[in-house]
């Protein structure tokens, strides 16, 4: 068995161990010549822009974008889960969306009816104009009647067909 002094000496002698000079040189050259593991290396910002720099920016941006997307998705998912399972989450009865929908429906209905009323008025006025061409001439009464229809047609918004017909009947009676 070795005594303590022998062991200490043996350990101290290990300090002097160093690799073979030739092996060190070969290894260094081998490491420097081998390709980088990641393939994309953070570029030297002082160096020229090269293709690796572009790839690094793209990859970095994609990473940031994907992290942000995941974060947003998680936030929305957590929010959705908490509200969805809340007993007070009542999307069907949400007042703002019902009001917006009702306004849209009302607007659509009004536009539809207005368009048809307008068409009906244009048709009748066209017929009156043709009537003026076929008769001996447009007279004052005829022209003033057509003129008065200008305001009738322009102010049709929101009127019902019955109202429109009554107005047109009045106009027609005036010119007879």
């Amino acid at each position, binding site marked *: 068995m070795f005594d303590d002094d022998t062991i200490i000496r043996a350990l101290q002698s290990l300090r002097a161990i160093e690799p073979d000079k030739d092996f060190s040189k070969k290894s260094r050259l081998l490491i420097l010549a081998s390709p980088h593991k990641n393939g994309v290396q953070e570029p030297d910002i002082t160096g020229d822009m090269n293709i690796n720099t572009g790839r690094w920016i793209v990859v970095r941006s994609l990473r940031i974008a994907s992290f942000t997307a995941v974060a947003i998705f998680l936030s929305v998912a957590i929010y959705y889960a908490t509200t969805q399972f809340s007993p007070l989450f009542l999307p069907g009865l949400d007042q703002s*969306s019902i009001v917006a929908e009702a306004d849209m429906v009302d607007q659509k209905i009004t*536009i539809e009816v207005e368009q048809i009323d307008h068409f009906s008025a244009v048709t009748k006025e066209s017929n009156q104009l043709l009537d003026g*061409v076929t008769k001996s001439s447009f007279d004052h009464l005829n022209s003033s009647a057509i003129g008065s229809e200008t305001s009738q047609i322009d102010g049709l918004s929101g009127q019902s067909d019955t109202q429109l017909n009554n107005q047109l009947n009045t106009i027609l009676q005036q010119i007879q």
Partner: protein
Amino acid sequence: MKKNTIIIASFLILFGITVPFSFASAQSPEINQKLDETRGKVEQLVKIKDNSSLSEQDKANAEISIKREVLLNVLDLAQLQIKTVRTKLDDVIFPDTEEWSAIKEKLYNALDAARDYYSTTESDINDNDALTLDDIKTVASDVEQHKIDTFDATVRNVNDVILTFNVGDVLLLAQDRLHKINSDITKIYAKRLTNSSTLKQMFFAASRSMDQARSLDDKAKEILLNVYGQDTSPSSKRFIDNLSKTLMVDYLATASSSTSTEQTSPDKRALIENHIRSLVVKSLNYIKQTYATFIDMSKKASSLLQ
């Protein structure tokens, strides 16, 4: 919470509601512009007629020239109307059945025939510089007759079909809302969030309004199918005859109760057209009523569940 609800509502509105509807302007600017221009010409002619400094020959020449332009403008107006209704008809999604395909084809053919008639007449006038006042009057008289007999009815029919189908779109939207509210109401009562039965009653009222709206729109479509569809089939003929009789009885009952001294026998076709329009307008009113109930339900739910 409130802010988030608004954001979600905005998304719903943006993606859920705007998609089915494409809003068109209520009135075509081109038509209004052409109408204004024509009115201006009529005024011009009246002024010329009153102008004592002009010779009779000048007045006669002005009359030919202006009446020719008025006639051409009326032909343009008719073509603009055709263009507008044709575009609207393109947006209508007809049911994929033989009967509706036949109606669609019939409406398109009627519009195309009218467009061809007006454009040919317009070309004929433009190609002939030597038209006399009598020639212009004759053409105007023919155009007027064609308009009254054919074109005006075609445009009315196309508009009725468009309106009926657009009500169908609104009905689908309202139906979707009714389903969403139904699931909320089920949740509220399943979780015993309130003891009040008011919301349930309101929901039944809204459902009944929707049923009425749908039934009226279906009725309008049934009439359209029979009137504009297979006119020759015996069942359609019977349907139209029965409907006409009922409408005539109703008309005479209303006319006899009115104080008007002037009574004219109404055209069978006009009675049916008015009936279709009245069904659609009633259907729209029920949809509006349904939405009014939806809004009341939303307010009531907020107050009950606070």
